[in-house]
């Protein structure tokens, strides 16, 4: 579940865990209606944002807690604690106090504690956001390995689009308490269903305009930078926003070779405003009128571009999408 803070994703997670009760609707886990089941009888595992480890217990004591309150025999608990701790590679720290651990280790204890009871669903509430970048990426890989190993369903709550794209089979983009789109990461990124999803996941260039011609699931839109063709079904005269991802925009020096009017492409002439080095690729901002268009290029090509140069941007029509303009008068 991906969304900005305050969009309701944590509330939704708490509803699934049973820590909050819905006013209407039902919650089912593996087909069983658990709407009125208290959290301690739901068999979910929660990894909290703050980890919420028990400070009065050791690492092993924390991991054993769930089985211990279920009244399992001592030997079974010991075996499970050992197995789970080795799963998160902390078997050597069982006797430590949790306060003596680093952030990454605490995170893994929290995970082991949730895993030890064999939950039907694992819930992660911004569980990785407290870690620094390198550690977070390492934990993402490790978590994916673990979740594959145990084969449990996991629900992540995050505001970090990279984390969502990396970790998920399916992503629910949330906004204002509603799910904007539920899709696999590729679809979500390449075919965002709404303007919000487009803006929240990844970068994009957005141009406001009016539909001039429509037909066959395509529209031709008059924008501030000229006519742009896009995928979409709108009536002529509708106010729309056309958008595309920066990696589809190619920069061609304006004077170098006119490719002619290729109708499968959009093209806009402008002037390079900035070339931002980002490692393997560079981001290029092109000003056309009072619009800024975002393009991307491999470093080798970008190094030949200079701010102030005239440039033509071309991109495929099939990667251009039209959305209803949210600010247009109804």
């Amino acid at each position, binding site marked *: 579940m991906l969304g900005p803070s305050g969009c309701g994703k944590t509330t939704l997670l708490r509803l699934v865990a049973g820590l909050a009760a819905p006013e209407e609707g039902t919650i089912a886990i593996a087909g069983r209606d658990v709407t009125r089941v208290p*959290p*301690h009888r739901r068999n979910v*595992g929660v990894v909290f944002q703050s980890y919420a480890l*028990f400070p*009065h217990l050791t690492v092993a004591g924390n991991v054993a807690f769930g089985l211990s*309150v279920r009244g399992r025999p001592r030997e079974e608990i010991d075996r499970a604690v050992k197995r789970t701790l080795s799963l998160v590679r902390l078997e050597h720290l069982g006797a430590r106090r949790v306060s003596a651990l*680093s952030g990454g280790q605490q995170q893994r204890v929290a995970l082991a504690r949730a895993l030890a009871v064999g939950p039907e669903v694992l819930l992660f509430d911004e569980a990785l956001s407290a870690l620094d970048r390198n550690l977070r990426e390492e934990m993402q890989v490790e978590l994916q390995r673990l979740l594959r190993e145990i084969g449990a369903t996991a629900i992540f709550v995050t505001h970090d689009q990279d984390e969502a794209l990396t970790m998920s089979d399916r992503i629910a983009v949330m906004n204002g308490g509603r799910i904007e789109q539920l899709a696999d990461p590729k679809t979500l990124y390449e075919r965002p269903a709404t303007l919000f999803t487009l803006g929240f996941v990844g970068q994009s260039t957005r141009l406001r305009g009016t539909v001039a011609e429509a037909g066959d699931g395509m529209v031709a839109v008059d924008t501030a930078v000229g006519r742009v063709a896009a995928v979409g079904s709108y009536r002529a005269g509708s106010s729309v926003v056309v958008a595309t991802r920066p990696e589809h925009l190619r920069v061609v020096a304006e004077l170098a070779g006119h490719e002619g009017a290729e109708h499968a492409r959009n093209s806009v002439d402008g002037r390079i405003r900035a070339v931002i080095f980002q490692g393997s690729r560079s981001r290029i901002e092109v000003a056309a009128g009072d619009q800024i268009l975002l393009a991307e290029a491999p470093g080798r090509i970008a190094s030949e571009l200079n701010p102030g140069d005239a440039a033509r941007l071309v991109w495929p029509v099939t990667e251009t999408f039209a959305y209803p303009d949210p600010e247009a008068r109804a």
Partner: protein
Amino acid sequence: MTAADLPVPSPVVSPAPDRERWLAIGFATPAALVLVVLFALPLALLFTASVAGPAGLTLSEYAKLATPHYLGVVWNSLRLALLTTGIAFLIGYPASFALARARGVLRSVMLASLFLPLAASVIVKAFAWTILLRSDGLVNTVLMALGLVDEPIRMIFTETALVVGAVNIFLPFMILPIYAVVAQLDHRLVEAAATLGASPAVAFVRVVMPLTLPGIVAGLALVFSLSVSAYVVPTLLIGERYPTLSTTIAKAFLLARQPGFGAAAGVALLAITLAAVALSARLGRSGGAR
């Protein structure tokens, strides 16, 4: 190992250790002086007096304490302290949670009702209880006016009155240290326990109780020390009929002119209090990791 496990060089430059040590000693000196002059010295004198006989050192004053009568006195003190501490805990522990959960005006009112009585002298409060409880006091007047009883119930100068008064007076010392810990309690730990399968009752016993143990121990130790050595409360609420170590000490010094015996009883009382504090310090520590 991950990057976060690597040792991080401390970015803070700390002052030279020598200077820090002298500063600490300097800051502690006034308090240490006060303790030595006003506390340690008199205690040493008291202890000397308790073992000083006409012919050198003697334990005869302590032997007097070991007689059935005075063992009864010691028991009276302990019984008063245990009853008071136990009842104050049963009332104070839930009250601390109510206090920690209250918000806004309600919380201010509750805190004020805890603190304000501390501003009134214990003598005033003890006398207030005698006014309430005596034969022609408020409680009996109301009971008789309602026709619930025909003649006044004897309440003042009973152990019940003594314990009721002591609980009332010492309750804030139970609630405040527990409240301080309960207010710090992270509610997410209780939620975590619930998601791990702990019912509310189990979560309370396994998480809330251990984590509030330091406050519980502090409250128990405070109320026990205060009530085992209480003087005004037993004097005004029960008097001669229930001699305690404190009233016995006062009598030995002020009336009977037996400073040696008074000193021995004083040392015994001190030993009981110290034992309670030591025991609680131990309990507080064992509340840690297991």
